[in-house]
């Protein structure tokens, strides 16, 4: 299980995401970050296990809760942190912010502020790969909230119809915003939906990074062989509420505590030590490195200059002449 992947790389990525999110939380609650913030703490194993099973040239689309997924797919934390501050050198030049964070050079097709919107985009990327006769695959993450939305069902149908290399990964964290699953889902187990559309569907322990990795690696291999889409229901939990404004009180305290006790990072740390891959000291060193990196990133990002406000008129169209005319119209 997971033999082709470097476990310490997985560990490092999970720790990096945890520190990124914790740093963002502290900065936001300290009044330093504008906008919205949806934290993915607790879901690191799903993000890292899934993206580590992809190649650099594979595609991935994420959600409004997209920091972990995009960092796992290769987004560098420094420009990402600058983006959260709205700095000119941010990943999206301060146009996207937390909810739209992306690095297209890493195959990231964007986080997305609209529930389920990344799903058809991923289907299209997989269609493109097939038409270009490439063996790239495309993975979409979506949360519980997306199970009620049309494009998930349309996307599963299209991916199956055209035998596309799509990997549907549901980040099953039990809640659509604050609403528990039994209030928005007709059957408890959406794996049955995916099976109904004709694709193999598996449930994995989404807090077990190696289990997620293995499931996605199998799905990717299947996609590359031209055998079509797969569905993975990765059961995990977000420790915080839907967003920073949500204290998470809609969820029973005992439930939150139970899932915190299943911390995917602490758990993987034990597995690594048990298998003699590395010592606790080695892992502490990785932890310290990532902590220092994020601390430095935050300090640097805070000092980064903001864009001139006129930069708001850039980056809309790629045709500079027609684009400028479309934006400005005539000025008399």
């Amino acid at each position, binding site marked *: 299980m997971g033999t082709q992947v470097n476990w310490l790389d997985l560990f490092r990525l999970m720790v990096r995401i945890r520190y990124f999110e914790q740093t963002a939380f502290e900065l936001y609650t300290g009044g330093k970050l504008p906008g919205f913030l949806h934290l993915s703490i607790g879901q690191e194993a799903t993000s890292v296990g899934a993206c580590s099973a992809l190649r650099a040239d594979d595609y991935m689309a994420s959600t409004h809760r997209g920091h972990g997924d995009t960092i796992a797919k290769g987004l560098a934390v420094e420009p990402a942190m600058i983006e959260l501050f709205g700095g000119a050198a941010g990943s999206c030049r301060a146009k996207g912010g937390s909810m739209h964070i992306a690095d297209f050079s890493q195959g990231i097709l964007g986080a997305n502020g609209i529930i389920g919107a990344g799903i*058809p985009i991923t289907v299209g990327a997989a269609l493109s790969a097939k038409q270009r006769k490439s063996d790239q695959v495309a993975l979409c993450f979506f949360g519980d909230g997306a199970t009620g939305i049309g494009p998930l069902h349309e996307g599963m149908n299209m991916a199956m119809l055209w035998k596309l290399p799509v990997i549907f990964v549901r980040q099953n964290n039990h809640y659509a915003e604050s609403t528990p699953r039994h209030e928005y889902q007709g059957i408890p187990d959406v794996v049955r939906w995916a099976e109904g559309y004709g694709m193999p569907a598996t449930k994995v322990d989404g807090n077990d990074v190696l289990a997620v990795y293995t499931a996605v690696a199998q799905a990717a291999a299947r996609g590359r062989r031209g055998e079509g889409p797969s569905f993975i229901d990765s059961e995990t939990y977000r420790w915080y509420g839907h967003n920073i404004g949500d204290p998470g009180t809609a969820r029973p305290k005992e439930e939150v505590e139970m899932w915190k006790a299943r911390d995917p990072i602490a758990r993987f740390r034990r597995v690594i030590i048990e298998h003699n891959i590395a010592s606790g000291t080695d892992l502490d060193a990785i932890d310290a490195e990532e902590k220092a990196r994020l601390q430095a990133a935050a300090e640097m990002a805070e000092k980064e200059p903001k864009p001139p406000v006129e930069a708001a008129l850039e980056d809309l*169209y790629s045709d500079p002449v027609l684009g400028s005319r479309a934006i400005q119209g005539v000025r008399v």
Partner: protein
Amino acid sequence: MTEITYREAIRDAQREELERDPSVFLIGEDLRDPWGGAYKTTQNISNVVGNDRVLNTPIAEESIIGAALGAALTGMRPVAELQYLDFVMRAMDSVVNQVAKVRYMSGGQAKVPLVIRAQGGGGKSSAAQHGNSLEAWLCHVPGLFVAMPATPYDAKGLLKTAIRMDDPVFFIEHKMLYMTKGEVPDGDYTLPFGVADIKRKGEDVTIVATSRMVLFALEAAAELEKEGISAEVIDPRTLVPLDEAAILESVHKTNRLVVVNEAVERCGWAAEVTAMVQKCAFSDLDAPIERVCSLNVPLPFQPDMERFVLPSVNDIVRAARLTLGKV
């Protein structure tokens, strides 16, 4: 030059671009032969380039456009067809929140070479859900270019340009124009976006019209000529970007303006042109600008009622007279 229909112009542009560039493909409902599209605008294309490049889809507009976007972001140049412009309402999140904004939200990382084609407009008794003119909605969305050709020549040249552009283009055809004929050059040609065409030269009043209304405006101009009124008819051809200069230059000459647009009048495209001209050419105007648009109701089914709601040649004639103080 060869005389072809507007429908053939759309077909030929797509087929020629498919043959020219392997990254172009068509995606939409009912496109493949022998059916060739609800309005036959893709007939004899899959026969030529193969079903791999002409994808028939489930009826799922939001995902058709979403999938076309995903392909556009990853190296392809899709041409997506919405069978009716009305159905864009089913795809509005994909069009507005995704297609139009992904480049901006990513700080210019993404390139979106995507054309969305749809036919709109009334005149066929298609009632309220198959005859909407929604161009103003689309012009309202930053990030899209919007083309709305009235003739076979413009349709073919602009569609080829649209397919070669690296930005998303919403390309609006009109169901009542498909059978109209016009000359097109033999061989490849393209037309620039943002350049209006003066469809008829005139001196006394400027009529700016879009899509099928260009034909109505030309008929109106012929009527007005009988009364000794010389009307200039301007077709902007693309609504975003708009050739403001051509309109202003004409108004500078005629001092009078009628704006004709098939959509309902309230908050419509004609209001936008009116606002632009009163701001930029206030001192040129000798009369209030007249708008000729649909009445502010959904399209009714019954043909006489439909004609009553849609702008007519007579409405344009009356509006032009009004700008000249003749009732």
